[in-house]
Structures are given as C-alpha cells and as structure tokens.
C-alpha cells in the first residue's frame, strides 16, 4: 500500500436481484460489479473505461453509496465508508462529489444558478451568511469560465457545454477532495468537449482534486487520466499507468479495445482485424475468464479457471492467466508513437 493512496476499493460486489414468478422470488442476480479491487492515488485522475454494461458507472455509484453495494470495502482515510450509517454519511458526501453525464437532467430547471450553488453550500454546512455565499458563488462561476450575469439565469438559458460547467461549479461548491466524473462530455459536441476537458484539467490542478473519470471513450481517457482501469462484464481486467497501458497492454481485451478505436488519421486508420463476437449478456456471464468467449488466445484453462487480478509489473495489474506470455503486437497507439519519434 503506497503512501499516496486516497481511496481503496476491495472486493466490491454490487449485485442486482432478478425476480420472477408470482411470488417475486429472487431467481438470480445481475452481477454488475463482481469482486473489483483497485486504489486511487491522491491528486491523480483515475480513468475507468469499458463498454456499455461493464459496470463502470455502478462502481462509481457504489463508492458514493448512491447504490448500496452487496459486499466489499471502500477505504477512505483508513475507515470503511460502506460501514458508516446512512444518516452519518453527510460529512463524507461533502468530500466526495459526482458530475453526471446528462447536464440536461442533472440541473433543476426551476432554480437559478445562484440558488443551486448556495443550496449545495448549505447542504455541506459550510456557509454562515448570504453575503459570503454570494461571494463564493461568484468565485465558483468565474472558476468554471462563466460570469456574474449567469448566476441569475435558469438552466434552459444555457447550452450543453455551459450547463456542464454549472454542474462542475455546483460540485465544487462543497469544497470536495474527490470528484467522480461519469461520462461528463459524452453529451457534448467535439468542439465544446475540448473546452470542458481543458477546464477540468485546470480545476484539478487549482483545487488539488482527485478524479475518478468514467467514459467509454478511450481517447478521452488517455487525455484525462494518469492511471487507467479497464472493465469488462463487471470485472477489472487490467490496471496500469496510462502511458504503459496504451503502449504495452497485457490483457488481450485491452489490446483489442485499443485497436478498435477509430483513429482520425487516414495514415494509421486502415488496418487490423476487429474482435469477433458480441459482449455476452450480463445476466449470463461466461464461467472461467469472462472474456474467454471472444479471446483469440483462450485455452481450456481460461474456461475452467477464473484469472485473478495480479501484479505483473511495478504499477501494472492484469487479470489474465497468460499476461506477459502472449507477445501481443504493439497496439496502433504504440506504433504511431514510434513513427513520430
């Protein structure tokens, strides 16, 4: 365990019961998150990437206890936040904030920006009087690149990018240490996405924040993250520093995922065999390694035995029986590097 550790997730499981029959008995479980462990370092941006249904959003919500996990531990300052009673959660919630994907749904249409910000400050119990609250709202709105006029407007008067800025300001209103960003730019157009991503990077530095950044977009993750975790069907497949992950992935799934990204550069774009098959249904996850049905390197061992996430490098963890033995060709991302340098 390193000293810079901020948050540690151990064996997190979030299962949703599937009921059926007249009596509504629990027939089976959807194992949205099934035994995931990782840690987030202080001041870093940890990226969580995976296809739809891989459980990345469920992890984020379980950490914040917006969904109650089935099992596991989440350590913050050495204590397990999953053990805290719900009514005692407030002081923790102040420190841990979340920004959602859809800025059209996450802002109250009947509140002005100012009242939204002040409400967040009040909820965190940190603001004594109105004048000070206003000063702070003014400061926050400036920090996200908007101005005083905007404080008196309603959400419908803003564009998508501006709304996401407001959501960021609201998250900052409680003076958090840690912010979960759940697909914060996937609703935005590319020219606006860049503005928001740059803003988030700046704020992380200025406010000394730790980020958990969730997206299905591998290009955005690379731009935003220091370390990356790759999810597939509720399991963590690989965790490594971003540079290393994109240059020398060890898990065949990570490798295939990186090679699937359409690259806006015709010189590199034409190429490569895509991964065969479809993502299996989360209600009926393959036994053994969850990826073995699509893995070009799968053997009998992969069907029989589930590989655990094990340390394969100094800062590299992989859940594959054959990590380091497969000799995966360098992915497109690494090839490009060599060409340009």
């Amino acid at each position, binding site marked *: 365990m390193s000293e810079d550790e901020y948050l540690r997730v151990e064996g997190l499981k979030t299962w949703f019961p599937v009921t059926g029959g007249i009596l509504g008995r629990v027939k089976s479980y959807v194992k949205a998150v099934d035994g995931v462990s990782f840690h987030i370092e202080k001041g870093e941006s940890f990226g969580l990437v995976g*296809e*739809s249904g891989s459980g990345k959003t469920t992890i984020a919500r379980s950490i914040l206890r917006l969904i109650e996990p089935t099992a596991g531990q989440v350590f913050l300052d050495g204590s397990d936040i999953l053990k805290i009673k719900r009514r005692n959660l407030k002081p923790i919630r102040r420190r841990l904030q979340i920004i959602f994907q859809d800025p059209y749904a996450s802002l109250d249409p009947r509140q002005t920006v100012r009242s939204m910000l002040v409400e967040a400050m009040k909820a965190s119990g940190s603001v004594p009087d109105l004048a000070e609250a206003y000063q702070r709202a003014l400061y926050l709105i400036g920090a996200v690149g908007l101005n005083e006029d905007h404080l008196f407007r309603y959400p419908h008067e803003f*564009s998508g*990018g*501006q709304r996401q800025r407001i959501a960021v300001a609201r998250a900052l209103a409680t003076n958090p240490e840690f912010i979960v960003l759940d697909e914060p730019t996937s609703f935005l*157009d*590319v*020219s*606006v*996405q*860049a*503005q928001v*991503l*740059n803003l988030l*990077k700046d704020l992380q530095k200025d406010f000394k924040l730790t980020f958990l950044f969730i997206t*299905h977009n*591998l*290009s*955005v993750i*690379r*731009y*935003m993250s220091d370390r990356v975790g790759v999810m597939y069907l509720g399991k963590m497949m690989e965790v490594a520093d*971003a*540079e290393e992950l*994109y240059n020398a992935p060890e898990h065949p799934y990570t490798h*295939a*995922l*990186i*090679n*699937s*990204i*359409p*690259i*806006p*550069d*015709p*010189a*590199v*774009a*034409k190429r490569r*065999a*895509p*991964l*065969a098959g*479809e*993502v299996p249904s989360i209600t009926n996850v393959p036994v053994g390694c969850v990826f073995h049905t699509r893995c070009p390197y799968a053997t009998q061992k992969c069907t029989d035995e589930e590989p655990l996430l094990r340390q394969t490098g100094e800062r590299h963890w992989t859940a594959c029986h054959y990590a380091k033995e497969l000799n995966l060709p360098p992915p*497109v*991302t690494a090839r*490009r*590097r060599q060409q340009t340098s």
Partner: protein
Amino acid sequence: MEKQSTQQALLQIEDLRVDFTTYAGKVKVLNGVDLTLHEGEIFGLVGESGCGKSVTALTIAGLLPENSEIISGKVLFEGDDLLKKSSNQMRETRAMKVAMIFQDPMTFLNPVLTVGTQLTESIDVRYGKSIGEGWRPPKSGDPLGSTTPSGRTGRREKKRILYEMAIDALRRVRLPDPERMMKSFPHELSGGMRQRVMIAMALARNPDLLIADEITTALDVTIQAQILELLRTLRGELKSTIVVITHDLGVVAEVCDRIGVMYAGDVVEVATVDDLFAKPMHPYTQGLLHAIPIVTGGNERLESVRGTVPDLIHPPPACRFNPRCPHAWDLCAKEKPKLLAQSPGHFVACHLYTQERKAS
C-alpha cells in the same frame, strides 16, 4: 459551386436551403448546401449536432418532416430533380434506388414481425414485379437481375426466390446462421446484429445510393469496429455509392474516400480523406481536428474552438463561422463565401483564400 471532377456524378445538390418552423421561430437549418457525390465512392458527411448533415440526407431521401420547408435548391439524381417528384414517385425511388439506414435500428424494425418477414418484404418491393420464369437474382454489378422474365411464376416459387435472396443478404453482412436469423424477432438480437439486419435490408435491394446515418454511434467500440470492417469489405462487392453521416472524424478516416465537413447548415470543406486530414484548409476543420483527443496522441493540451455552435433561428450573417473564427476579417460578416476549388478536388468555402485577402 463545386465543379464535377473526372468521375461520373451520381448526385448533385445545388444551393439547397431548408427551414424548419418551430415554436421558437424559423430555424434556418440548411443555408445553401452544394455537394456532389461520385459514383461508387464512400462519401463521409461530418459535423457537430445541428449542422444539417442529417437534414441533407433526409432531403435526398424525401423524408423531411412536415414542419420543414424547402426554400430553394435542386437535388439532381440520375438527371432528375428529386425535389420535384411527388411523394408517390419518391416512395418508388426509395424502394428502387435510394436506401437509408439510421442510428437506432429498433425504431425501424417492426417488433412483432420476424427478420425474415421484413427482409423478404423489402426485397419484394424492389424485385417482386420482375420475378418471373427465367429470372435469376441479381449479382453485384447487375442490380436488375437477368433480362425480362419470360413468364409468370407461381406464388410458391416466388416465395422461394425471395427467401433465398434474403438468406443471401444475411450472409453478405456476415450474420451467423442466417436460417435461424430469418425466424428471429428484432428483440432477440443484439444492437450490432440489428444494425447488420438493417444493412442487409438495404443491400438486398442493390440501391444506387445508400445513406448510413450515424449507424455506429449507438454501438460499443468493438462492435463498431466490426461494422466498419463490414462496410470496408462490402464496398469491394458492391457498386452502390455510400454516404456515411457521422460526427466522429475517426469513423470517416477509417472508411471514406472523400469527406464533406458541415458547419451550421453550410458545407465548408470537401476533400479526399488524405487531403483533409493532411492539410485541412477551413479554420473550422482545423479547429475541429485540434479539438479531438486522439488516442495515439499523448495528453498535450487540446486547442478548443472558442464559443459555441450558433443558434440557427438567428444565425450569424454571411459566413456562419465568423464569430468563432480566429482569422475572421471584414468580408466574413458581409458576404457568404462560396465553395471553391483551391487545389484539384479540394474545395473550401472561406474568404481567407480569396484574392483580396491574399493580396493584403
């Protein structure tokens, strides 16, 4: 206006203007679009949401919604102006010549009919009348099938032919176990499979023009890669011209021959894929290319395009990009730039490249 190159033009759009009447006012969605599609190419139409790429496609297919109004323009397709056709004639054109695939297959597949029923129906609409004795199903390069049939075929025989053509279409889009697929209902299929069924339905009719509107947007990356791979392999087998509409520059770089970039209802740049990415000329294209995080890049800071996409009820005057453009000068707010060739095959609508500007 974009001049026709050496290749045969299949479709030519000239000065197309379309307005939408909404509660908030008239939205000037298309602002004089000029575009030429060459026969047999894959053309990518890219732009951010609201730039008019889908409306352009809907105009071609004659599927504009009721609150829209075509102000001016021509859509010349095989010598005819599609805008002058009646809705019945357009229906015929869609059945025989122009096929369109959309982002969400579930809204276009009937949930209570099997894939087989829907697929054979679509083939029946196209070929039903020509099926007769002595007729054989079309092969690529021969979209009409054999010569005129010599006699009538029984209903059962016709059904068999349609079934076989449907199976063949499912094979062409690489769907496993086509016989079983024919009996499946749309809800039993995954998103990627449904999209393949939609492609099969379109291809089975051997359209001259296939419009694919954001067909991979709703899919996961690994599935998206499969569909893109499919488009690449199909292009060798087909003679259809394909228009790929997307907001993802990565997708166009992967499959297209030529690209048109749209911004707020204008086509601002048209070039071959290699040209466009190697030397983008319009400031908007340049900005867009700098603004996307690229997985092959590191984490150098992105250069964003300042400002936001304009409101098209009150669009900026003349060049609609001028309020956001880092290079804008007096003329940009006075006169709309024309789409002109700056080098062979590379068209740009920007006053930066006009004579006066170069001189000053």
